[in-house]
């Protein structure tokens, strides 16, 4: 389906929903989503057009410094709520599966700022993100990734002495015969692309924007 094939009023509805999400206008976005359902516009198309476009625009606002992390969090939550309204009539077999990413800061490392930023940017860009927080044991990443049938494990480390845990997750995956099931992306202040390659990671993000680019490259 093409946007140009829709009647003018329906196109306006989809654009308005996108704009309401970008403006983080919760009430209006939900109302518009209900109107879209009532208009019987293809929900998968609506999700793709309104939510995916909104995600791109929110990301641009963050990159330019107009939006901050809390805007990403609120926009991400709103996208979930709007997605649930739009998607309630989609038969389960037609629901497009999102790529699932398990993310966290490795064991003995309490730094959360960069990890939060990456997690939120991934979520607001359409990934299903499970944030495990900070100080996460290596085995917990693996168990959660197995449970959620995740596509990727993303590991943050802000200390030179916690970087070995990134390697540990990869080594444990190998030992358990699971290495091929999950992509592994690493990042954090002291982590370099060279180190990521040395430990056998699939991806590396030098900052949040780079991490998002890398995740898209690896999974989409």
């Amino acid at each position, binding site marked *: 389906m093409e946007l140009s094939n829709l009647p003018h009023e329906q196109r306006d509805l989809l654009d308005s929903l996108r704009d309401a999400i970008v403006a983080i206008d919760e009430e209006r976005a939900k109302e518009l989503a209900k109107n879209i359902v009532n208009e019987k516009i293809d929900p998968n198309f609506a999700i793709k057009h309104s939510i995916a476009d909104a995600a791109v625009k929110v990301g641009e606002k963050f990159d330019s410094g107009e939006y901050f992390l809390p805007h990403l969090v609120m926009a991400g939550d709103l996208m979930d709520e709007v997605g649930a309204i739009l998607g309630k009539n989609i038969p389960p077999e037609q629901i497009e599966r999102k790529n699932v990413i398990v993310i966290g800061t490795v064991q003995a490392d*309490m730094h959360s*700022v960069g990890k939060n930023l990456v997690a939120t940017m991934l979520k607001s860009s359409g990934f299903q993100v499970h944030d495990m927080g900070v100080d996460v044991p290596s085995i917990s990443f693996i168990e959660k990734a197995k449970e959620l049938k995740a596509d990727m494990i993303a590991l943050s480390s802000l200390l*030179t002495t*916690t970087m*070995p845990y990134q390697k540990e997750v990869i080594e444990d995956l190998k030992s358990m015969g699971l290495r091929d099931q999950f992509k592994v992306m690493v990042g954090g202040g002291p982590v370099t692309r060279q180190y990521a390659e040395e430990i056998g990671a699939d991806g590396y993000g030098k*900052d949040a924007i780079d991490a998002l680019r890398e995740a898209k490259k690896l999974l989409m």
Partner: protein
Amino acid sequence: MRLSFWEILLRTKEGPIIEEKQFDLSIFKRAQKLQEKYQIKYDPEKPLDIDGDLADRVYQAGVELFLDIGTYCTTTRRIIKLTEQELQVEMNSCPDELELGQGEDRVKIVHRDVEGDQEPVVVAGIQTTPFSDEEMMFNITKGCAMDRCIDGIWAGILLKIDGKYDVVAGAPSEVYQYRRTIEIIRKAIKAAGRPGMIIINNAPTSLGTIAMYSEENGLRKTDGIETTGMSELKVDYDDLNRSAFGLAHGIHIHGSHSSVIGGFSGGPEGAAIVAVAGALQLVAVQKADSFRCGVLESLVKSRVTRKELWAAGTAIQGLSRNTRLIVDGSIGDHPAAGPGTKQYFYESAAGHIVSTVMGAHSTQGTRKYVVGNTCNYGTPLESRWMGEVCKGAVGMDRVTADRIVRYLLAKYEDKLTDAPQGETFEKLYDGEKLEPLPHYQKLYEEVKEELGSQGLHLKD
């Protein structure tokens, strides 16, 4: 009477329970409202607040924010709150003067005024950087400690035990190696002729940090203990373990907190407000006697962007003008550029001038922002520079500081995201004589002369 530490711990068990995300968003929403209420506006044309009125409003907003939303304990998922009266008692009871170090190397760290003539305490050394081997760690540290313009030294870390086994945080190797590191540092400062100078180090876990203490050959009571508030008004039991150890042993507690521009603090205005609130948290919750009032910018790996200088400088000024607390600024501690470059010196100077002039000390060492696992990524000359700048800026007025900072920003501001990497110790220093190689000495002299012509007269 001050709230006991045990009352704080009780509140971590009995305070309101809330989801972490809700707390994070409450920081942003409340800071935005306070920003409007107190008419706090960042103006990129004015990197420093030169009259103090704005700083006073930032201070008031920071107090209100702290009282409104409190501190989130991530271990128990509960909020620790204080009443206005309790906070006032905490602040009034906090010392405005402390003694650190021992013997002839002992120094007083006092409350500093804005544009004050109180000497700032400077703790330099290459903060938390990896060293290739014990000899290199000993030599570089000795070289830093020999410089009389610094008062204390930060330690780094050796990443391998016996040159073979990885040191891993949270594992027994952390406990062993951080303790070994301090023994090397103590020998180095003794060899430098300054056996009683302050040493600071902070291991990733409280267990590793506590293991470093030994009056004979480790960290001493007179060195203090670091407790790091998790970013943006949070704390966990690992942080509070450090406070508990400090209180149990009568060790001066130094706290550190950073608000985040682009994070849950919002923009620079919110970051300035949250920086004040974070400082109050360190005093009231973590029982710090002195604290670093810091600001980070989420997308830039330097601590001296225009926004960071404004936010940290204004928060520090607000605290200095409105309290008798001992504030640590250290804004210039993490340049984007590496050692051996003019940009390193420019960034370091901008941050340390703002720290000193706004009423703070600088105790967080010298280090390129991102060092990775590159070893020996620094030299004693950056420590000398830090000490000379901090002490050279004593008594400088804000108008002069503002002019010099604008000059420096013009030198580095557009190069922060692609900053020169610089060189390691081996490329910049004569390891035997512990002196800069001629090309590095020349570069240093050039910058020194350049900033002298701008009105920054360094003390030797």
